[in-house]
Structures are given as structure tokens and as C-alpha cells.
């Protein structure tokens, strides 16, 4: 029953996905030929994830047809998809950290064969065969949590191979890899291709994987906007397709020569996480902090804000020492932290927009044991207006807002406390292109007003557009300090991943 017209392994036709009024995918056609390597590109929120979730059977399409290997599937579920040979390796790899390499690789296969009893010899044979296919050597008995990131990814690939994958979809496969590791990943991909296994890369950073790709598909706002041989694209045309325009970012505003020292971090150490962190931040400065996934950027932010306790070191704000490991005291001293993951760490999703802002100011508006609710609300409303949060009803739950507006709510909470230093972790993750530029404007304005900003991001154009100085981290250490005027995206990317 192979569909004669195309011979495609995956053939999705006019697939549409709606979430409660929001169209995440709009009439998208997507095909993958056997053994083909496809880049699926798009900005955050373009619908890439939705597309692969539909293929993996996690979400169901609202309309459209899906053929896998020529067979029409009305409703996919994860079992059907994997039985058909479609395997997704998500960014976190979805491995069991406490189990061994062999157990992880053989897990799905043994489940699928409905073995009631785990057979460890069989598991090791399966794992060995899969590892041989990609010609790598990882100890079979090692617990997965002890492996470096690149090896975890390989275990994920082997698990897919052990299940006879015909298509491996890799979600942002390079975000945590050094340049050398990316090289060896590409070699493995070539090997898979010659084996007849198709690969789909899902990414918003494509330069690295372009050379092995056969075809590029670009999504924007849920629509397919480009589809063609990889040789037709270059970095500039890709960006244009992804963003829909030539985004011209403003430059970071220059730092006043007499800017005073605001924050000094000295010898911050935390065993196994941070080593000898030293840097300072001036009033009005935007300091970039970047590094690969797992380089310790977020750990440093958490240690500075007191969410985790550093073993040693000092944090001095305006020449006053701040106690380590105490977020309440740190916030009180004038440091704010807007976390990376808005939905679980940043916001109280089911609570109202205004409460999400007011939460930082409750104690200030309490008098004689009672809250002055009117003052509290009017202050929060004022901040929502200043940050241009678009909403008709500030009593609506914050989850009803778009990503960009949610980020503004997170910012408003801290700005209401008039902080001296703001640590922003991935401030434009999951925010659409238009809002992103507005958030960058906002960050530059805040710095102009004298707040010191530490901006953690792996979005290099974003760092270059907002920061005067960029620190690069690797394995918990600051390894590089770059003046953003003297570098460009390419150089920065190289220094980051070398």
C-alpha cells in the first residue's frame, strides 16, 4: 500500500492544529522521503514542535491527512507512531537517568515485544548492536546520568535504532554540543542516511546542520513559508524566511564612562557546579552571560539570587554584602531574577494577571495587619500599563496571555520592587519576533535608567543587540569575556562552542 504518487515515508497533507482558538499549524504539507535529511526551521512559536508532536502521536491534528509509509493514519498515538518507525529524540532526550545504557537502549524494544520479564543478556546484545551501527563505544553498564550530554544523545539515537526507526526526529540536537561533538554527530547522521534512515532536524540554529541536509522546510506562524533543496538557502535567506522580514536590531547603548560599580561577584564556588566565578557589573550596564546548555549559566544565576547556596564566595551590591542562599534577603537587597521557564518557575498560571505582579509587593502594602488592596492593584495596573501588557481584563488568569505579554508580567513583578540589578534568564524564549524586539528595547531602556542587567541567553543576535559585554561560560567557569562591539555573530558562535 505504498502511496504510488510520492513514495514518501512521511506524507502529511493540509494538516491543521488548533488549540482553543489559536491556530498552531495552518494547512501545512510536510513530506520526508526514505533516507532523506530534512531541516525543519522556524522561530519559537512557529509550529515546529506542534508538527513533530503530531507525528509522534502526542497531539492530534484538527484537520488534514497523515500517511506513514503510504498508510493513512486517522489518529496517531505514541505507540502507533513508534511501531511505524517514527522516533523523536526530544531536547531532554527522555532517558531514564538511573538506568544503565543497555537498559535505556533496549527499554522500548523489550516493551514492544511484550516481554514480561527483563532479560539483561538480550538487552546488552540489542544495545551493542545499536551502538555498532553508529560505530561508537559507550560502556553498557554505566548509568545514563553519569554520561556527558553528547553521549546521552547517542544513547537516545541508539534507542531509536533498536526500535527499527525509519525516521529519527531530533529536537534542537546541537544546543548542548561543542563544535567537535557536532562534527561527530553529523558523521553519525551521514551513516544513518546511508543505512536508509531518514532524519529531521528541528532547530532555530541551522548553520551547523545545513551541510548534511538535503532539504529545508521553514515554518512561520503555523504556516509553511519555504520548502526547497538545502543548497537554495543561505543564512540570510533562512533568517528572512523565519522572521518574515529583515530584522534590524538596534545597538546596545554605550555605557557612561563614569558609571559606578554596582555588583561585584568574587570567587563564587559550588562544588561540581561553579568554579571561581569573578565579575562585576556597573550601573546601566547590560552584561551578557552565555554558554552551551549545561555550561552553568542558570546555576550561576540561581546561586546569585540565592535559590541554591554557593559553598563560598561573596556577592556585594553597592558595597553591601548579600547573604548567600537566601532569595528573600537577596530580593530585599535589590536583586531581581526573571527565571528561564515562565510557566513553571516564573508565573502562577491559574492566578490573575494583577496578582502575578502584586505578589512581589504584598508586604509593602500591608498596614496594621491588613492589605491595602486598592493601592496594591493600582500599583500593579500601573506597571502593566508601563510595560504595555495587552489585556482587556487584569483579573483574567495569566495563562490566557501570549508569551511576550507573560514575559512582561514577569518583568513587571520585579520592576515594581525597583531593583538595582535584574537577572534575566532567556527573556525572549517562546516570544514572537515582534515582541522580542520590543523586549530588547525595554531592556535597553531599563539599563539607561541605571539598572544593572545580567542577561542570560543563547540567542547570539539578541546578546549582540543588547549587551555591552558578554561573558562565556563552560563547565561552570567563566572562560571568556568579550566586548560586543569587537565581535560578530560568527566569531561569538565559534568562541562559544570551541
Amino acid at each position, binding site marked *: 500500500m505504498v502511496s504510488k504518487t510520492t513514495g514518501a515515508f512521511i506524507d502529511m497533507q493540509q494538516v491543521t492544529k488548533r488549540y482553543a482558538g489559536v491556530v498552531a499549524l495552518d494547512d501545512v504539507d510536510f513530506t520526508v522521503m526514505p533516507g532523506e535529511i530534512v531541516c525543519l526551521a522556524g522561530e519559537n*512559536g512557529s*509550529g515546529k514542535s506542534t508538527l513533530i508532536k503530531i507525528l509522534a502521536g502526542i497531539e492530534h491534528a484538527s484537520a488534514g491527512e497523515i500517511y506513514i509509509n503510504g498508510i493513512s493514519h486517522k489518529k496517531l498515538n505514541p505507540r502507533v507512531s513508534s511501531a511505524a518507525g517514527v522516533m523523536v529524540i526530544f531536547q531532554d532526550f527522555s532517558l531514564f537517568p538511573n538506568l544503565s545504557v543497555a537498559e535505556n537502549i533496549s527499554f522500548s524494544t523489550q516493551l514492544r515485544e511484550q516481554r514480561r520479564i527483563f532479560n539483561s543478556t538480550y538487552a546488552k546484545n540489542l544495545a551493542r548492536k545499536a551502538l555498532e551501527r553508529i560505530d561508537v563505544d559507550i560502556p553498557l553498564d554505566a548509568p545514563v546520568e553519569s554520561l556527558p550530554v553528547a553521549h546521552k544523545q547517542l544513547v537516545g539515537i541508539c534507542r531509536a535504532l533498536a526500535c527499527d526507526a525509519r525516521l529519527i526526529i531530533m529536537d534542537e540536537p546541537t544546543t548542548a554540543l561543542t563544535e567537535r561533538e557536532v562534527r561527530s554527530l553529523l558523521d553519525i547522521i551521514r551513516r544513518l542516511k546511508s543505512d536508509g534512515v531518514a532524519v529531521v532536524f528541528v532547530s532555530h540554529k541551522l548553520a551547523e546542520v545545513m551541510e548534511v541536509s538535503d532539504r529545508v522546510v521553514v515554518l512561520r506562524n503555523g504556516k509553511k513559508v519555504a520548502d526547497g533543496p538545502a543548497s537554495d538557502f543561505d543564512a540570510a535567506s533562512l533568517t528572512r524566511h523565519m522572521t518574515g522580514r529583515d530584522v534590524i536590531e538596534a545597538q546596545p547603548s554605550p555605557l557612561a564612562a563614569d558609571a559606578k560599580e554596582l555588583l561585584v561577584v568574587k570567587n563564587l564556588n559550588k562544588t561540581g557546579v561553579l568554579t571561581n566565578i569573578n565579575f562585576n557589573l556597573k550601573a546601566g550596564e547590560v552584561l551578557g552571560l552565555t554558554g552551551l546548555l549545561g555550561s552553568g549559566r542558570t546555576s550561576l544565576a540561581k546561586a546569585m539570587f540565592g*535559590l541554591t547556596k554557593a559553598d563560598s564566595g561573596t556577592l556585594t551590591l553597592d558595597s553591601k554584602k548579600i547573604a548567600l542562599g537566601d532569595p528573600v534577603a537577596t530580593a530585599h537587597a535589590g536583586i531581581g531574577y526573571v527565571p528561564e521557564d515562565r510557566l*513553571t518557575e516564573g508565573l502562577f498560571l491559574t492566578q*490573575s494577571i494583577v496578582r502575578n505582579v502584586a*505578589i512581589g509587593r504584598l508586604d509593602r502594602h500591608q498596614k496594621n495587619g491588613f492589605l491595602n488592596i486598592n493601592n496594591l492593584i493600582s500599583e500593579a495596573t500601573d506597571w502593566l500599563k508601563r510595560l504595555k501588557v495587552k489585556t482587556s481584563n487584569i483579573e483574567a*488568569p495569566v495563562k490566557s496571555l501570549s508569551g511576550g505579554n507573560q514575559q512582561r508580567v514577569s518583568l513587571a513583578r520585579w520592576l515594581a520592587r525597583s531593583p538595582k540589578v535584574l537577572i534575566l534568564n532567556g527573556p525572549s524564549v517562546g516570544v514572537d519576533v515582534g515582541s522580542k524586539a520590543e523586549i530588547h528595547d525595554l531592556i535597553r531602556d531599563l539599563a539607561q535608567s541605571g539598572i544593572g542587567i545580567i542577561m542570560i541567553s543563547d540567542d547570539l543576535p539578541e546578546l549582540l543587540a543588547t549587551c555591552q559585554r558578554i561573558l562565556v561560560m563552560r563547565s561552570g567557569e567563566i572562560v571568556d569575556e568579550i566586548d560586543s562591539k569587537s565581535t560578530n555573530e560568527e566569531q561569538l558562535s565559534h568562541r562559544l562552542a570551541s
Partner: protein
Amino acid sequence: MKNHNNSNILESPEFRMAIIAISVFVLMSLLSPERFLSSQNIISMAFQFPEFAILALAMTIVMLTGGIDLSVVGISNFTAVVAAIILTQFASPDMSLQASILWYGGAIFAALILGAVCGYTNGILVAYLGLPPILATLGSGLVFTGFAVALTGGSAVMGFPEVVAWLGNERLLGIPVPLIIFIVLAFGLHILLSRTSFGLKITMYGANPLAAFFAAIDINRMLIKVYVVSGMLSAIAGLVIMSRANSAKADYGSSYLLLAILIAVLGGVNPYGGYGKIIGVVLAVLSMQFLSSGLNMLQVSNFARELIWGSLLIIVMIINSTNWIKQKKNAIKPIKSS
């Protein structure tokens, strides 16, 4: 600052509860009009429900944080036993009124302090030692009950001055004193939850503990205060029970734990935390009392009553859980990629 989870009033759990309360009342009135609607029955209901209703308030404040307090009955009995021992040791039935009031006041004070200490212990276990509330309070509840047994040898403590009976059996301006106590506590808790920084923090913490941590809320102090409030409310319930029974014993009110949880959940408190209103809990209390005295009049056995309560708890949870699960799902949707 209303919570708009249930923006439509007709869909709110409080509205649903009001319908249930009225339905049960009407149903019981129809089934046994002369007896259920008699003033005697109405008054006896007003004396009966405050003791477990106060325990339900204690349960509610803890559930709002996403926790649970299984030690409420243990604290009630422990504190009541201590108060009873103070009274029997130092006061006697033939004492002068002033002296017995003084000793009664002292006993009440001691019970409240002890309730706070018990709650503080729970708070330390949950906040600083990070134990799951359900296990921490299961354990501590057994310990408190154990202390009460050790103090009394398992038998009832009795022989109080007459003044002790006032709290549970008399009326003030025609209103039963226990009912007045309950109204004051319920109103106070409502104000605490909706008009103070502490109350809003409780709700926000219940909605997302991790976000509360990242928002630099002093979580540990807040949790300890929550359990202290719960412990003191339990102690007050214990004093009401002691007055009504004119004695204190280590195993009084053993069915009240299930009842308190049932009422809180029935009243719309989300056991995952973050949502709940006192008015809903009050309506749930009334429904349970109507149901319970109705069943009594229809001569349904006590065992059947527990069966009905247990089933009711599960049914209400099933009805509400579709809502809760939806909220949970939304809360953990990942942010990255796409």
C-alpha cells in the same frame, strides 16, 4: 482581587455547593417534615456541627497550600485532655464561680498554646525537613494521640466545674455559643485569606510552589504559620468537644478526620492547592449536617453513614478532578522549543 478560575458564577464550586445544601435541606424536610423542621432539631443541629466545622476550617487552610493535616483530631484530643487535666487537678466542681472561670481561662490558654506548638511541629516537619504533609501529619497525629493516651491511660477525664459546660451548651442572645465561635472563626479566616499578605501568599504558594520560591516569598515561615493556625483551630474544636461531652478522651471524634477532609473538598477547596473559599466550606458544613441529621431521623445506622460519607468524598473528587487535572496539565506544559 477575585480569583477568576471560575469566572462564571454558575459554574463555581460554591454555587454548586449552595444548590446541594438547599437540595439536601428540602429533601430531608420532605422526607420527615415534622421532625426535621422542628425547632428542636434545628437548634440541636446548630449545637452539633460547629465542632467538626472548625476542624474543616483547619483542614481548609492547610489544603490551600496543597498540603493536608491529618493530625487535626489528634491535636484536638491532646489539647482537650491537657485542658481537662488542668481543670480536674486545680479546679473542682464546688469551687466559686470566679475561681473556676479563672482556671477555665487558664486551661483554654494552655490548650491554645499547646495547639500552636503541635502545629509548629508539623510546620517544621513539612517546611524545613521537607516531609510530605500527608505522612508528616499522619505520624505526628499518632504521636499527639499517643501523648493523650499516656496522660489519661485511655480513659475519659471528667469532673469539671459547671462553667466548662457553657462553651458547648449555652446560648448567647438566643444563639448557641459553639455556633457563634464557628461564625467568628470562619469570618476571621475569610479575612485572613483575602485581606492579608499572608493569605494571598498561601493561595499563590498553593497555585505554584516553585514560582513562589522564585518570587522570593519566605515559604518556610509561611508554611509554619499555616500549620500553627491549623493547630490552634484544632485546639478550639477540642475545647468545644470537651465542653459538649463534659469530658475529654484520647479517641473522641475519630470520624471527624474524614468528615473534615470531605467538607473541605466538597466546599470546593482544591486539594492540589491554590483555590478555595470559606463560603464554600460553610455551605458544605451545612449540607453535611442536614444530611447527617436527616439520616439519623430516618434511622440509618452509623456504619451506613460512614459509607455514605466515603462514597460522597470519592464522587465529589471525581466531579471536581476533571477541572483540577486540566489545571495541572496546563501548569506543566513545557515552554521551550517550537
